[in-house]
């Protein structure tokens, strides 16, 4: 029995040995590749080459020390990179959710909604009153339908009921990519669709779009006759308000009024006049710029800014603790060497500069990798597809990148303080007594 077991063990080993060696070599190849793509490898190589040729200097001494334990330096750099990448992503998300994208033409657009709530309709009879207000160039009803497309269970892009003739004077920055706007005006069951939505669902002119109502107890069946492109959000679907009126049997109400004003200078005056025009009526309005309107819409998501701010703070605190801990560890194991440097005549300020430069350098490199990685990721990824249309753009702005870089730089500086103080407090004699 024992011989049989030995035979089986030996047989299994013979059988799996090639696989084992393959795994070992794959692992080695992975490690080699990681070593090769590690920026610290190249920084060390360049520094060593420089030092061999020109001798040691303050800067090269810092680099040589920073990368002396490459595994730890790499892990520190990576943790800063991941954290700063996460921080930048969170700040970008916060910006996207609280500061919606804006076009130049948006500054000329104003939205009037029911003062009680955005969900309360407004009487259609307000239209002639608004039209007469000086500074108003065009006005159209603008009612959010909120239907689910095909079999979808969520509203992944907005549909609005508008007056086709009046609406043309409001959306000026887009252009017709396919079909003709006149066809949209003529056909009461037609719709005018954004190019992103056409592309996403593989639609073409003449196709039909069916929506199941979620706010309204009616469904839509629309024919695509035109495609628009070039606005900040090329996803929406626009259809005739008259069709909605017919389906709901209520021709007397609209969701909001969408206005275009003559110039940005008169926008505030128009807002005040529109609000005043319906004061003390059964349907008082709250008029605001398109941007302010979008912001109030976003506030329905809750205090996103606070939540993301809290998460970002936690990321920063974790990053700080981690970097301080790593730097303290790295310096503590070099206490004796630092004491030797002190004995050789290096001042405390110079040692602080060494530690600071090392900590700052690793944090800066980590930030470069993390922020650069976040920018590359969010720039080249199809976010609209990934978030099912919830987010269109995820623009990592220079300001956000600068914020991430400043946070990383501050972390590098702060994390150098504790080890530097420890080094400053320790006498040369005590430092020399510490074990390697």
């Amino acid at each position: 029995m024992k011989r049989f077991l030995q035979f089986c063990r030996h047989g299994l080993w013979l059988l799996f040995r090639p696989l084992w060696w393959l795994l070992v070599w794959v692992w080695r190849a992975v490690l080699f590749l990681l070593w090769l793509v590690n920026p610290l490898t190249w920084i060390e190589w360049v520094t060593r080459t420089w030092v061999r040729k020109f001798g040691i200097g303050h800067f090269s001494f810092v680099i040589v020390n920073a990368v002396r334990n490459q595994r730890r330096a790499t892990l520190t750099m990576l943790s800063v990179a991941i954290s700063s990448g996460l921080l930048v992503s969170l700040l970008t998300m916060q910006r996207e959710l609280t500061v919606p994208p804006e076009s130049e033409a948006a500054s000329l657009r104003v939205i009037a909604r029911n003062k009680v709530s955005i969900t309360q309709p407004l009487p259609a009879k307000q239209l002639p009153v608004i039209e007469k207000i000086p500074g108003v160039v065009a006005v159209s009803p603008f009612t959010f339908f909120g239907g689910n497309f095909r079999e979808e269970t969520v509203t992944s892009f907005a549909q609005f009921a508008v007056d086709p003739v009046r609406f043309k004077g409001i959306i000026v920055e887009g252009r017709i990519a396919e079909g003709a706007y006149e066809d949209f005006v003529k056909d009461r069951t037609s719709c005018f669709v954004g190019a992103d939505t056409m592309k996403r669902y593989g639609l073409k002119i003449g196709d039909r779009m069916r929506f199941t109502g979620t706010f309204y107890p009616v469904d839509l069946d629309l024919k695509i006759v035109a495609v628009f492109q070039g606005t900040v959000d090329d996803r929406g679907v626009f259809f005739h308000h008259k069709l909605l009126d017919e389906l709901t049997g209520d021709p007397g109400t609209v969701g909001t009024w969408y206005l275009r004003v003559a110039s940005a200078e008169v926008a505030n005056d128009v807002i005040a006049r529109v609000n005043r025009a319906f004061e003390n009526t059964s349907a008082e309005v709250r008029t605001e710029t398109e941007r302010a309107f979008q912001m109030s819409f976003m506030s329905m998501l809750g205090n996103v800014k606070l939540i993301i701010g809290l998460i970002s703070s936690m990321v920063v605190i974790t990053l700080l603790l981690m970097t301080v801990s790593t730097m303290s560890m790295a310096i503590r194991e070099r206490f004796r060497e630092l004491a030797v440097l002190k004995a050789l005549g290096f001042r405390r300020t110079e040692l602080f500069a060494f530690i600071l430069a090392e900590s700052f350098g690793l944090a800066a490199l980590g930030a470069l990798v993390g922020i650069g990685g976040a920018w590359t990721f969010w720039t080249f990824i199809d976010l609209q597809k990934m978030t099912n249309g919830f987010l269109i753009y995820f623009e990592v702005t220079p300001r956000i990148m600068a914020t991430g870089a400043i946070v990383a730089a501050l972390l590098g500086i702060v994390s150098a303080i504790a080890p530097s103080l420890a080094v400053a407090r320790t006498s040369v004699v005590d430092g020399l007594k510490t074990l390697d």
Partner: protein
Amino acid sequence: MAAPPPVPIVVVRDLSKIYRQGDINVTALNSVSLDIAPGEFVVLMGPSGSGKSTLLHIIAGIDQPTSGSAKVQGIDIARLNQSQLADWRNQNVGFVFQSFNLIPVLTAAENVELPLLLTNLSRKERRQQTLTALELVGLADRGHHRPDQLSGGQQQRAAIARALVTDPALIVADEPTGNLDAKSAGDVLEILQSLTRTAGKTVVMVTHDPKSASYGSRELHLEKGELAPGPGPK
């Protein structure tokens, strides 16, 4: 008429050092006075805890006395602040430690060059001076090796080169042969001895080993923090 005695490079007067360990005061040095002339190779001997390393540290400016004075080249080093002391050490003292204390990530030549970073020398001058120091200790051909690629004796020679590179008047060595075999120890001691004879350096060395002490020009014995009468000049 006899020549006037040389001005001592080290003048120690009534030097005391008391350490506080918890509630107990431990006297490491008790009213020690001594003079060391330029070019002397002074060996400090004594049992463990006799205060020889403490005396060496005070003379080298890395420790402060509790009372008394220690003047090196006429400068009372106890009166210097931390920054002044650091500059003074860089210009006037070379250190040789028992465990070499070379920076492991630097080559021997880079280790030797390190103290020169604090000087105003150009890159070229620094390299030249480093090479000279390495040649003096017979290590010019091993300058590009890291400490872990050198033997103990070679590492200590590199440490001596580092101590010499700024051309200090005083070299302090704390048991420099403690971690070496007999052959390497002999080589190191010969280098230190030749520095006093040919370059006029003053060497103060702490050792337990009577054989190492025989290389010195004068032995001083310390016991319980006080200088004991010893053999004196050889």
